[in-house]
């Protein structure tokens, strides 16, 4: 198995050493060969992908991702291509429109191969909540790929596509990137348009790339960033040249180490790998400072009020009336009840109930309002911290990928896995997960970097510098146990 980065594919295409259709064929072959084991894709749009690629064969190299195959998480709407959010309720839903990111990628002349698996409506940390199939970790198929964007992470890790998009609400890009040994980037909230992303928690959701290098992440981010008038929360913020910004090193940059992380049960191997990564950055000229995030410990609780509250409202539209699954019923109320009972899985129902409760009259102040207040505190923690440093370093997750089935019946355990990723969502910060080692069991470990709002440039520069300096290449996945 040989895998290629976006950069390598583009270079080869530009030099006319290869044709777009060859890359698409290779990708489809990889999917055919490995996906029966991995289960990353819910839909493979092979014929149309080949058709598009062949058309590009005859065209001059033009768009920024000309001829590069890619995949989209199946909660990103694609016109005329089934988009399910891995839910029975949208089992056969075909959107009448394209998400902005899908449109932007199409405009770069990339080739969409298909849609990847996820936890239903992006609710989960293992992709086990998909209504349709399990996705397995390419490094150990008995383990989870992480979630909710487990399909996109696994597809990139397994070499099926050089990049894929996911969505990150509480870590759904960074955690699976960490578990699958790839690069995952959650941009600043508002950097990438959410138009066409099936909403889970609107104030937290953000689309971002999975890639095999930080440089590729910069490249893809460039293609999907920028204000979109269809998303009022997308910021009219200048988009810098991320790729050019990669060079320049970390000399003089201040790296913030968060104090008191031990209390969150960080695995020793993870701690060691992250420590080593910090040393690498220090050796490259960065200065290390300590920072405090006193409200970090409340992040999970805060998140699990705000996200379900928004979700309970966002998922109200799945009522069987206009699209998607509709169950029979003797009355309107019964039709609603049957449709939603049959259409939603356990975790989705759990969160709808938690969210409905948190917003109920009499409980709103104690839960939702309180959670928003804590969210403000967490944001302020970061404001303070970033006065002392340029990037903050943390593990992406406390542990490496856990076995399939281990936490599926223990939602609290599952939720606690998001402790280090949730704060960036609550604060709206950009955050990046870069592979920083492999455990004794051969499982990838992720280094998480967080930067100031809108400063993806510094984030990517530090990530890129680390990647260049780390002194090892990630081993290729075994695709077996």
């Amino acid at each position, binding site marked *: 198995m040989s895998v290629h980065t976006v950069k390598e594919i583009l270079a080869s295409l530009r030099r006319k050493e290869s044709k777009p259709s060859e890359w698409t064929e290779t990708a489809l072959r990889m999917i055919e060969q490995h996906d029966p084991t991995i289960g990353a894709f819910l839909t493979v749009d092979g014929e149309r992908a080949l058709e598009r690629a062949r058309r590009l064969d005859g065209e001059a190299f033009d768009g920024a991702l000309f001829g590069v195959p890619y995949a989209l998480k199946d909660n990103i709407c694609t016109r005329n291509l089934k988009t399910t959010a891995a839910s029975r309720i949208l089992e056969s839903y075909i959107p009448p*429109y394209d998400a902005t990111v899908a449109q932007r990628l199409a405009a770069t002349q990339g080739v969409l191969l298909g849609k990847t698996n996820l936890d239903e409506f992006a609710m989960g940390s293992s992709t086990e909540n998909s209504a349709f199939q399990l996705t397995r970790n390419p490094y150990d198929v008995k383990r989870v790929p992480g979630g909710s964007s487990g399909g996109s992470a696994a597809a990139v890790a397994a070499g099926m596509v050089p990049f894929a998009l996911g969505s990150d609400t509480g870590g759904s890009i960074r955690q699976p990137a960490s578990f699958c040994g790839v690069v995952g980037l959650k941009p600043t909230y508002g950097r990438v348009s959410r*138009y066409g992303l099936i909403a889970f928690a609107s104030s937290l959701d953000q689309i971002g790339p999975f890639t095999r290098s930080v440089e590729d992440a910069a490249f893809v981010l460039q293609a999907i960033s920028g204000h979109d008038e269809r998303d009022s929360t997308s910021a009219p913020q200048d988009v810098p040249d991320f790729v050019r910004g990669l060079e320049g090193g970390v000399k003089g940059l201040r790296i913030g180490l968060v104090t008191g992380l031990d209390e969150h049960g960080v695995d020793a191997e993870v701690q060691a790998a992250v420590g080593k990564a910090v040393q690498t950055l220090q050796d490259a000229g960065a200065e290390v400072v300590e920072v405090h995030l006193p409200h970090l410990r409340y992040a999970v609780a805060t998140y699990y009020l705000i996200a379900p*509250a928004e979700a309970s409202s966002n998922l109200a*539209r799945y009522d069987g009336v206009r*699209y998607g699954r509709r169950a029979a019923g003797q009355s309107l109320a019964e039709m609603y009840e049957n449709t939603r009972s049959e259409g939603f899985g356990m975790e989705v129902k759990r969160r709808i109930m938690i969210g409905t409760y948190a917003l109920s009259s009499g409980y709103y102040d104690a839960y939702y309002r309180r959670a928003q207040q804590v969210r403000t505190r967490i944001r302020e923690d970061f404001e303070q911290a970033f006065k002392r440093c340029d990037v903050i370093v943390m593990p992406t997750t406390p542990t490496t990928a856990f076995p399939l089935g281990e936490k599926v019946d223990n939602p609290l355990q599952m939720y606690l896995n998001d402790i280090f990723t949730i704060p960036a969502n609550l604060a709206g910060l950009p955050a990046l997960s870069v592979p920083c080692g492999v455990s004794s069991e051969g499982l990838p470990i992720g280094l998480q970097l967080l930067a100031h709002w809108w400063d993806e440039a510094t984030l990517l520069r530090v990530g890129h510098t680390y990647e260049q300096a780390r002194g090892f290449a990630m081993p290729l996945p075994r695709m077996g146990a």
Partner: protein
Amino acid sequence: MGYETVIGLEVHVELKTKTKIFCGCSTNFGDPPNTNVCPVCLGHPGTLPVLNRQAVELALKAATALNCQINQDCKFDRKNYFYPDLPKGYQISQYDQPIGEHGYVEIEVDGRRKRIGITRVHLEEDAGKSMHGEDGRHSLIDYNRTGVPLIEIVSEPDIRSPEEARLYLEAIKSIMQYCDISDCRMEEGSLRCDANISLRPEGSTEFGEKTELKNMNSFRNVQRGLEFEVQRQTQLLEQGQAVTQETRRFDEATQTTVSMRSKEEAHDYRYFPEPDLLFVHIDDAWLDRVRAELPELPAQRRARFEQELGLPAYDAGVLTAERAVADYYESVVAAGSDAKTASNWVMGDLLGYLNAQGLTVEASPVRPEQLAGLIAQVDKGTISIKQARDVFKLMCESGKDAEVIIKEQGMEQISDEAVLVPIVEEVIANNPKSVEDYRAGKQKALGALVGQTMKATKGKANPAVVNKLILERIGG
């Protein structure tokens, strides 16, 4: 024991924007079902709302015209409930930071001004329209109306009778039309009204148990529904029974109200801030501009008509109720007509004709300058008032100017003495008996002579001139 009626109204007014509040679909009324829809207003997965600034502009105008304090930082909230005509399962509305609060309107009750407080004015999106099949098994939904911008105007419980409620509604409608905020066509649903009504012993300051009244689709029905409720609640209280807090529906066929749902079934809307939209900041410049551009409102115009034009209060009230009528009237006056004469024509013949034909004043076949032209013909003495009313009818039918019709019909009044003198002298010569009678003191005989002269001129003689000429000749 006597009871005092306490009423508060919630009025929904559709704003006159070209496109919906959160998408680009047309707001046109009456198009085939589900033709003005898109993924956004159908609530497709992944779609997001984008605020139409024009809707904010109109809501701001409304709140200003209703004397509200403006929240310069207002926000949107989600009101969550399930209904098939609500595609997202929530309505985007405003909860705790509405665009306007603490306003009022004035109405005139029995010749006295009364101020009705306005609690709040907020902006929200309309829902679709459900139509239930007669087989009782099917319902159809038209989503054309989904996302049409609305403002909800909530009054204080300051209204004390069904009649006041109607007057309040008329005042609201009038203000909305003056500011070009809404058509306020109740029959098309662009103005809708729900009422809260309770009774309390006279002199009491505490509110009684209230009922909420829905489904009243005309101003008349609002008044009737409330009148029925007053009656029903009075009866209950007099019998020593309690009024149940509930929602009731006005039934047009029976002119009564019937129970829809009790308070226990009331919704918990789980309001929370809409995360898909930003705060709306209304800066001073925007607010100042809206204030400056606000047209003269009905109450001000009415006062001006009374004071500057010297119109009776009744005339001023009728003429200013609708902005278009007031505009029409003022154009007639501007074209040179006497204020009171113009008022008589507009309120009488013009509105009479338009109402009979079901036309709006904008669609009047007679333009204001044409009406002024007609009035001028009467002033000049070309035609009599009686003739003028016939000419007006012909103007309505043909759209022609009064002058043209008078010529065509040969209606010009003869006022030229040189023409009339020989005729008058001939009539006097031919009617010695009448002359004698008049001189003997029979006033009636003068009428006979005038009548003969009119007959001789086929009715075209100017009666005043004829009168004068005869008197000059037979003394008096």
